[in-house]
């Protein structure tokens, strides 16, 4: 029997043959391949070596340094990507591989890329810059742009009504994810700015994935927040979530509850402060009345008894009015005589007695002490024991 004729070729010829087949194939000359990166290696030469894989198998790939320079991200094992290039043969290695010309992230990765891109762009435009508006300390009304379902709106309402029930809350029901969300948020912000019916805006939603929060990374939302005349507090997701809305807003809160806390003061603290104020008023007033009594004591010897009685009565009258205003007892306070004397010119008996029972007083309540203090035509009030009369100096 004759042996069949064998075609004898070299290794190089085989490789070359396959290479020519692949290189002549139009489809393989320009393809986009989706796969997951594995065995990623950046060679010292600057070239990148990747094994793209999917459920069915693997495809070796290389991206030369020049092409890799244009990458907008650092490849990592596990990343989903779309690699664009051509398939050919690397003869020296005896493999076919994808020569990658450009590559982009796919899925969630693509969202991150878009986020970084927009963030850079808006930062360059100055949308994140200081000065931010200060959040009003005592808002009469707060606007809330969020969904009417879910925990966020409830948290905000609970915190505000607990801390500062004086503030009114107006909720603009907003879509916070999915189609129409970015327009909805923009509309809410623009509504409050048009109506000017709130002092502060809280814009946000509860926690979720990057896709869920995506509306707050949209450009039109960022621009609406930037354009807002009303200060905006952003409250998107959880502590670790940062959206572009957070960078543009006048204040970023890690959660809706914290946003509410920052939007209003604490009533309990304010009331405690008011109690202190009342004590200070009472104390200051009490001191003045006591001073009056001390001065009168000092001049008792040199003053007719009935006149002294008169002034004591007057001070008692002040005390009573004070008590009435406070509905509580006045406090006893000691004060130095010198200080008291200088403050109580109006009651100084020596000065007023030369005029008998009357004290001439200017419109601002200060006492006219001598003839040089007034001129012809000046108006004043003559304080008598039982009232006052308007007078004009002749």
């Amino acid at each position: 029997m004759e042996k069949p004729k064998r075609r004898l070729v070299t290794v190089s010829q085989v490789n070359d043959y396959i290479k020519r087949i692949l290189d002549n194939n139009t489809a393989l000359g320009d393809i986009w391949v989706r796969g997951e990166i594995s065995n990623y290696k950046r060679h010292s030469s600057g070239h990148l070596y990747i094994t793209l894989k999917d459920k069915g198998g693997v495809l070796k790939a290389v991206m030369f340094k020049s092409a890799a320079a244009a990458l907008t991200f650092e490849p990592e094992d596990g990343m989903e990507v779309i690699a664009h290039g051509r398939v050919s043969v690397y003869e020296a290695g005896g493999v076919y591989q994808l020569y990658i010309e450009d590559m982009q992230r796919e899925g969630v990765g693509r969202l991150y890329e878009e986020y970084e891109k927009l963030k850079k762009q808006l930062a360059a435009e100055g949308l994140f810059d200081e000065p931010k508006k200060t959040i009003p300390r005592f808002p009469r009304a707060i606007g809330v742009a969020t969904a009417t379902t879910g925990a966020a709106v409830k948290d905000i309402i609970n915190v505000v009504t607990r801390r500062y029930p004086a503030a009114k809350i107006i909720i603009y029901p907003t879509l916070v994810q999915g189609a129409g969300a970015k327009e909805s948020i923009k509309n809410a912000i623009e509504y409050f700015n048009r109506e000017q019916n709130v002092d502060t805006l809280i814009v946000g939603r509860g926690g979720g994935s990057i896709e869920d929060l995506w509306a707050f990374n949209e450009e039109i939302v960022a621009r609406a927040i930037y354009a807002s005349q009303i200060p905006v507090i952003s409250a998107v997701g959880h502590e670790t979530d940062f959206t572009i809305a957070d960078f543009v807003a006048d204040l970023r809160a890690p959660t809706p509850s914290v946003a509410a806390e920052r939007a209003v003061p604490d009533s309990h603290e304010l009331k405690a402060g008011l109690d202190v104020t009342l004590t200070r008023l009472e104390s200051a007033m009490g001191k003045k009345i006591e001073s009056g009594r001390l001065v009168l004591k000092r001049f008792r010897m040199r003053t007719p008894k009935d006149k002294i009685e008169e002034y004591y009565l007057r001070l008692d009258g002040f005390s009573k009015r004070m008590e009435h205003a406070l509905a509580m007892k006045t406090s006893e306070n000691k004060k130095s005589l010198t200080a008291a004397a200088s403050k109580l010119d109006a009651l100084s008996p020596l000065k007023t007695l030369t005029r008998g029972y009357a004290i001439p007083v200017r419109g601002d309540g200060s006492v006219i002490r001598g003839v040089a203090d007034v001129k012809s035509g000046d108006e004043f009030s003559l304080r008598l024991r039982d009232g006052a009369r308007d007078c004009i100096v002749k």
Partner: protein
Amino acid sequence: MAKTKTFEEQLTELDGIVKKLEGGGVSLDESLALFEQGVKLTKSCQKILDESEKKVKVLMSEDGEMVEKDFIAQQND
């Protein structure tokens, strides 16, 4: 709606009164007037803080306009 002084304005005025009253150089009559005004403001501010009337509104679209309605939190989620 702003015919009365705002809460903030009242607090500011109150602060001024306390300073003036504690400062001295004010006649006794004026002191008493300041004192009475101070107490009045304090009580007014306390009253504002104690307001517990339900003030949570939600906007609903009605004939193309946004109208305020009382908000009732949904229970189901």
